[in-house]
């Protein structure tokens, strides 16, 4: 059940350059069904910024009534979020969308998790879920440069974690696909979240029947009512068939939707 809740900011930290991790407390964490779900955040109690901002749930701890978000402070809305302080009450709508269903994975299988930039956060919750199922988790994380890199340690605690940066300032230089190729990583399922070019590259020769990808799209309502966030389906790329990223996704099987 989707709810709109005034949640309490427990803590907020800048974990990399302009990347903030905020921990929120309230009833919502108990309703989260799977990693990869997101919340839609009213970044200010005033009229502007008018639209909510979609942000993935990076981790959640239902028993402690807490969940974490990790976001890059960039525009009007996320810069308001970066100014939140512990104790603030903030307006959060969620949990929204369908997260990563990993029930088709069997113990002992190998999962490759590929994240880019602020696509990385929801994959942490996913990695924990997979590890909990007894899946062997490998992770490849791509960032712009060393200062914008985060979560390397947390993923490393769950399995092999490789980092690539475009400028080579940390980890391996180049794109995530370069790392996969160079290291000849093998896997039974690949899960990914990140910029569209990355997803498109993976969708080609790396995708698997199991695994999933998580998409971003500019959103209005976040609940499936306004049709702002639709994408075409792969089997009807020019027609009227569609998926709504907010309510049918943001997580989709590889090959289901057109990545454009």
């Amino acid at each position: 059940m989707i709810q709109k809740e005034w949640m309490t900011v427990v803590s907020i930290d800048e974990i990399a350059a302009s990347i903030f991790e905020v921990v929120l407390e309230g009833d919502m964490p108990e309703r989260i069904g799977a990693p990869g779900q997101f919340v839609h955040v009213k970044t200010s109690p005033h009229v502007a910024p008018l639209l909510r901002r979609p942000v993935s749930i990076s981790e959640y701890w239902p028993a402690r009534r807490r969940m974490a978000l990790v976001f890059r402070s960039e525009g009007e809305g996320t810069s308001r979020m970066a100014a939140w302080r512990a104790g603030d009450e903030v307006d959060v709508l969620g949990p929204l969308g369908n997260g990563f269903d990993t029930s088709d994975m069997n113990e002992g299988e190998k999962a490759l998790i590929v994240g880019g930039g602020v696509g990385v956060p929801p994959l942490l919750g996913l990695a924990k879920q997979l590890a909990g199922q007894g899946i062997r988790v490998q992770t490849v994380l791509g960032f712009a440069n060393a200062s914008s890199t985060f979560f390397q340690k947390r993923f490393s605690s769950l399995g092999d974690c490789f980092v690539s940066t475009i400028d080579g300032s940390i980890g391996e230089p180049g794109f995530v696909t370069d790392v996969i190729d160079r290291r000849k990583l093998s896997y039974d399922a690949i899960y990914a979240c990140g910029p569209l070019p990355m997803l498109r590259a993976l969708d080609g020769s790396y995708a698997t029947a199991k695994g999933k990808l998580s998409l971003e799209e500019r959103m209005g309502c976040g609940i499936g009512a306004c049709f702002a966030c639709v994408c075409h389906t792969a089997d009807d790329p020019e027609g009227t068939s569609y998926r709504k990223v907010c309510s049918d996704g943001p997580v989709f099987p590889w090959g289901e939707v057109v990545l454009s």
Partner: protein
Amino acid sequence: MKMHVSLPGLEMKNPVMPASGCFGFGKEFAQLYDLNDLGAIAVKATTEEARFGNETPRVAETEAGMLNAIGLQNPGLKGVTEQELPWLQQFNTPVLANVAGTKMEDYEAVAAGLSESGMAAALELNISCPNVKEGGITFGTDPKLAAELTRRVKDVSNVPVYVKLSPNVTDITEIAKAVEHAGADGLSLINTLSGMKIDPATRKPLLANEIGGLSGPAIKPVAIRMVYQVRQVTALPIIGMGGIMGMEDVLEFMMAGANAVAVGTANISNPFACPEIIQQLTDWAGTEPAADWADWKQGGVKA
């Protein structure tokens, strides 16, 4: 004070309905609250054939407003009458069905189909959607075309017809008078203002469709002015909209001359906007000595 409002085809428990296009066909909101609480429901535009609409991005944020260019995505007349409207019948809330098209014949076909379905309490003729390029826009800006379309749709409809006016015109009162003369049972205003935003990063329009419709609090002064102006020239019921976020905005529209209101963008930034506003209004009405809305309006802005 009594909150009830009685408009042609629409017996409303209160004067508040969600605006067309900002509420889908209600299913998503039904998970959040009881749709019986609403005064009415204006559903998404129906076209004759199913439409995908425009490519994304379809929305952009602006100061105190938003741009949208959804492009009338909908499952078409058949889809709406077979899948969407039947489901809405479970609620004791009248449905205002929004009719769109690109040719007069499209409008007639959709209006006839929706009307015959028996599931729409009234029709709302969307002659003003700025996101359909083929020519839909001209119906809303030319009094003669608007009148002819109204007449033709009235001819095929057995439920009341509201005409939804475009604000992108030199003189909205002319269009209002023309469609009144052509037999409209009521007016809805305003639809979105035509607007645009350019993405500094790409130096291209942010919306795939380039131009979109501006809605939200930013446009409220324009909407209030138009409701006020149209109120001076017609006795038709007016459903006022444009930037309503809270109870005070509802009262402002009622003062300007509206008989009921629609809440659009607010549903998008807060899916509980309608019930919250209705609750505020109910609390307010409880302390208000006037008998009903007509009584309350006495002595206010001249209607």
